Protein backbone atom coordinates (compact mmCIF):
# COMPACT_ATOMS: atom_id res chain seq x y z
CA UNK A 1 0.00 0.00 0.00
CA UNK A 2 1.37 3.40 -0.97
CA UNK A 3 1.91 6.25 1.46
CA UNK A 4 -0.98 8.17 -0.11
CA UNK A 5 -3.38 5.28 0.48
CA UNK A 6 -2.19 4.93 4.07
CA UNK A 7 -2.72 8.65 4.57
CA UNK A 8 -6.21 8.46 3.04
CA UNK A 9 -7.33 5.57 5.26
CA UNK A 10 -5.93 7.16 8.40
CA UNK A 11 -7.49 10.52 7.55
CA UNK A 12 -10.89 8.94 6.94
CA UNK A 13 -10.64 7.31 10.36
CA UNK A 14 -9.77 10.63 12.00
CA UNK A 15 -12.64 12.37 10.19
CA UNK A 16 -15.09 9.65 11.32
CA UNK A 17 -13.77 9.87 14.89
CA UNK A 18 -14.12 13.66 14.90
CA UNK A 19 -17.69 13.54 13.57
CA UNK A 20 -18.62 10.87 16.15
CA UNK A 21 -17.02 12.87 18.97
CA UNK A 22 -18.77 16.01 17.79
CA UNK A 23 -22.14 14.22 17.77
CA UNK A 24 -21.53 12.81 21.25
CA UNK A 25 -20.40 16.20 22.57
CA UNK A 26 -23.48 17.98 21.21
CA UNK A 27 -25.80 15.22 22.46
CA UNK A 28 -24.46 15.17 26.02
CA UNK A 29 -23.12 18.67 26.63
CA UNK A 30 -25.01 20.80 24.14
CA UNK A 31 -23.83 22.99 21.29
CA UNK A 32 -21.67 25.93 22.30
CA UNK A 33 -18.19 27.42 22.09
CA UNK A 34 -16.73 24.40 23.94
CA UNK A 35 -17.82 22.17 21.06
CA UNK A 36 -14.93 23.61 19.11
CA UNK A 37 -12.50 21.64 21.30
CA UNK A 38 -13.57 18.45 19.50
CA UNK A 39 -11.80 19.64 16.38
CA UNK A 40 -8.46 19.23 18.18
CA UNK A 41 -8.84 15.58 17.18
CA UNK A 42 -8.05 16.66 13.62
CA UNK A 43 -4.44 17.10 14.74
CA UNK A 44 -4.28 13.30 14.61
CA UNK A 45 -4.11 13.60 10.82
CA UNK A 46 -0.46 14.62 11.20
CA UNK A 47 0.54 11.67 13.39
CA UNK A 48 1.37 8.92 10.84
CA UNK A 49 4.57 9.08 8.82
CA UNK A 50 2.44 8.90 5.65
CA UNK A 51 1.17 12.44 6.37
CA UNK A 52 4.73 13.65 5.79
CA UNK A 53 5.06 11.73 2.54
CA UNK A 54 5.94 14.88 0.60
CA UNK A 55 8.85 15.62 2.92
CA UNK A 56 10.52 12.23 3.05
CA UNK A 57 12.69 12.98 0.08
CA UNK A 58 11.27 10.25 -2.07
CA UNK A 59 10.05 10.91 -5.56
CA UNK A 60 6.39 10.53 -6.46
CA UNK A 61 5.90 8.86 -9.78
CA UNK A 62 3.50 10.11 -12.44
CA UNK A 63 0.55 7.95 -11.33
CA UNK A 64 0.87 9.03 -7.72
CA UNK A 65 1.12 12.67 -8.79
CA UNK A 66 -1.97 12.35 -10.98
CA UNK A 67 -3.98 10.75 -8.19
CA UNK A 68 -2.83 13.31 -5.62
CA UNK A 69 -3.68 16.15 -7.97
CA UNK A 70 -7.15 14.77 -8.82
CA UNK A 71 -7.91 14.09 -5.15
CA UNK A 72 -6.82 17.60 -4.23
CA UNK A 73 -9.04 19.10 -6.92
CA UNK A 74 -11.97 16.96 -5.78
CA UNK A 75 -11.51 18.11 -2.18
CA UNK A 76 -11.35 21.79 -3.00
CA UNK A 77 -14.10 21.40 -5.61
CA UNK A 78 -16.40 19.96 -2.94
CA UNK A 79 -15.46 22.80 -0.62
CA UNK A 80 -16.25 25.35 -3.31
CA UNK A 81 -19.66 23.79 -4.03
CA UNK A 82 -20.45 23.70 -0.30
CA UNK A 83 -19.25 27.28 0.15
CA UNK A 84 -21.37 28.61 -2.71
CA UNK A 85 -24.32 26.48 -1.52
CA UNK A 86 -24.01 27.86 2.01
CA UNK A 87 -23.82 31.45 0.81
CA UNK A 88 -26.80 30.97 -1.51
CA UNK A 89 -28.79 29.26 1.26
CA UNK A 90 -28.11 32.16 3.62
CA UNK A 91 -29.15 34.63 0.94
CA UNK A 92 -32.37 32.80 0.19
CA UNK A 93 -33.30 32.10 3.83
CA UNK A 94 -32.33 35.41 5.40
CA UNK A 95 -32.90 37.63 2.39
CA UNK A 96 -30.49 39.62 0.25
CA UNK A 97 -30.43 42.68 2.47
CA UNK A 98 -30.42 40.95 5.85
CA UNK A 99 -27.67 41.46 8.40
CA UNK A 100 -26.19 38.30 9.75
CA UNK A 101 -24.58 38.33 13.20
CA UNK A 102 -22.97 35.09 14.35
CA UNK A 103 -20.59 34.33 17.21
CA UNK A 104 -16.95 33.96 16.27
CA UNK A 105 -16.93 30.33 17.41
CA UNK A 106 -19.67 29.53 14.86
CA UNK A 107 -17.54 31.01 12.12
CA UNK A 108 -14.43 29.08 13.15
CA UNK A 109 -16.48 25.91 13.53
CA UNK A 110 -17.76 26.35 9.98
CA UNK A 111 -14.17 26.67 8.79
CA UNK A 112 -13.27 23.44 10.59
CA UNK A 113 -16.17 21.68 8.86
CA UNK A 114 -14.81 23.04 5.62
CA UNK A 115 -11.42 21.50 6.43
CA UNK A 116 -13.11 18.19 7.27
CA UNK A 117 -14.95 18.29 3.94
CA UNK A 118 -11.75 18.96 1.99
CA UNK A 119 -9.62 16.23 3.60
CA UNK A 120 -12.54 13.79 3.71
CA UNK A 121 -13.32 14.11 0.00
CA UNK A 122 -9.59 14.08 -0.79
CA UNK A 123 -9.14 10.85 1.17
CA UNK A 124 -12.16 9.12 -0.39
CA UNK A 125 -11.08 10.19 -3.88
CA UNK A 126 -7.55 8.96 -3.24
CA UNK A 127 -8.78 5.51 -2.19
CA UNK A 128 -11.19 5.32 -5.14
CA UNK A 129 -8.52 6.31 -7.66
CA UNK A 130 -5.98 3.82 -6.32
CA UNK A 131 -8.60 1.11 -6.69
CA UNK A 132 -9.90 2.54 -9.94
CA UNK A 133 -9.49 1.65 -13.56
CA UNK A 134 -7.46 3.01 -16.47
CA UNK A 135 -8.70 6.54 -15.97
CA UNK A 136 -7.12 6.74 -12.51
Amino acid at each position, binding site marked *: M*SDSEKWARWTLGVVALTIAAYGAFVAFLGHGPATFSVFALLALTSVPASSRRYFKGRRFDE*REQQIASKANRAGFGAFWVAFVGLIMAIYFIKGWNATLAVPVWTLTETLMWGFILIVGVEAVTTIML*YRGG*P*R*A
Partner: protein
Amino acid sequence: MTQENLAEQAGVTRHTIMALEAGKYFPSLLLAFRIARVFGAPVEQVFEYHGEPK
Protein backbone atom coordinates in the same frame (compact mmCIF):
# COMPACT_ATOMS: atom_id res chain seq x y z
CA MET B 1 12.92 -9.44 -13.85
CA THR B 2 10.89 -8.62 -10.78
CA GLN B 3 8.35 -5.82 -10.51
CA GLU B 4 10.64 -4.17 -7.98
CA ASN B 5 13.57 -4.22 -10.42
CA LEU B 6 11.48 -2.87 -13.26
CA ALA B 7 10.02 -0.15 -11.04
CA GLU B 8 13.45 0.91 -9.87
CA GLN B 9 14.91 1.06 -13.36
CA ALA B 10 11.88 2.87 -14.79
CA GLY B 11 11.82 5.35 -11.91
CA VAL B 12 8.34 4.52 -10.60
CA THR B 13 6.90 2.64 -7.65
CA ARG B 14 6.07 -1.06 -7.68
CA HIS B 15 2.40 -0.10 -7.21
CA THR B 16 2.46 1.69 -10.55
CA ILE B 17 3.98 -1.34 -12.27
CA MET B 18 1.28 -3.51 -10.70
CA ALA B 19 -1.42 -1.08 -11.88
CA LEU B 20 0.06 -1.13 -15.39
CA GLU B 21 0.07 -4.93 -15.50
CA ALA B 22 -3.50 -5.03 -14.24
CA GLY B 23 -4.60 -2.55 -16.91
CA LYS B 24 -5.61 -0.06 -14.24
CA TYR B 25 -3.31 2.67 -15.43
CA PHE B 26 -2.27 4.06 -18.80
CA PRO B 27 1.34 5.25 -18.68
CA SER B 28 2.50 8.49 -20.19
CA LEU B 29 4.47 8.25 -23.40
CA LEU B 30 7.63 9.06 -21.46
CA LEU B 31 7.08 6.21 -18.98
CA ALA B 32 6.20 3.83 -21.79
CA PHE B 33 9.51 4.61 -23.51
CA ARG B 34 11.41 4.25 -20.23
CA ILE B 35 9.91 0.82 -19.59
CA ALA B 36 10.61 -0.24 -23.18
CA ARG B 37 14.23 0.87 -22.75
CA VAL B 38 14.53 -1.27 -19.60
CA PHE B 39 13.47 -4.28 -21.67
CA GLY B 40 15.69 -3.22 -24.57
CA ALA B 41 12.74 -3.44 -26.93
CA PRO B 42 10.72 -1.01 -29.06
CA VAL B 43 7.76 0.47 -27.25
CA GLU B 44 5.27 -1.21 -29.61
CA GLN B 45 6.58 -4.61 -28.53
CA VAL B 46 5.98 -3.84 -24.88
CA PHE B 47 2.64 -2.03 -25.16
CA GLU B 48 -0.32 -2.77 -27.39
CA TYR B 49 -3.18 -0.47 -28.20
CA HIS B 50 -6.58 -2.08 -27.78
CA GLY B 51 -8.73 0.99 -28.31
CA GLU B 52 -10.47 3.25 -25.85
CA PRO B 53 -11.85 1.59 -22.71
CA LYS B 54 -15.64 1.39 -22.54
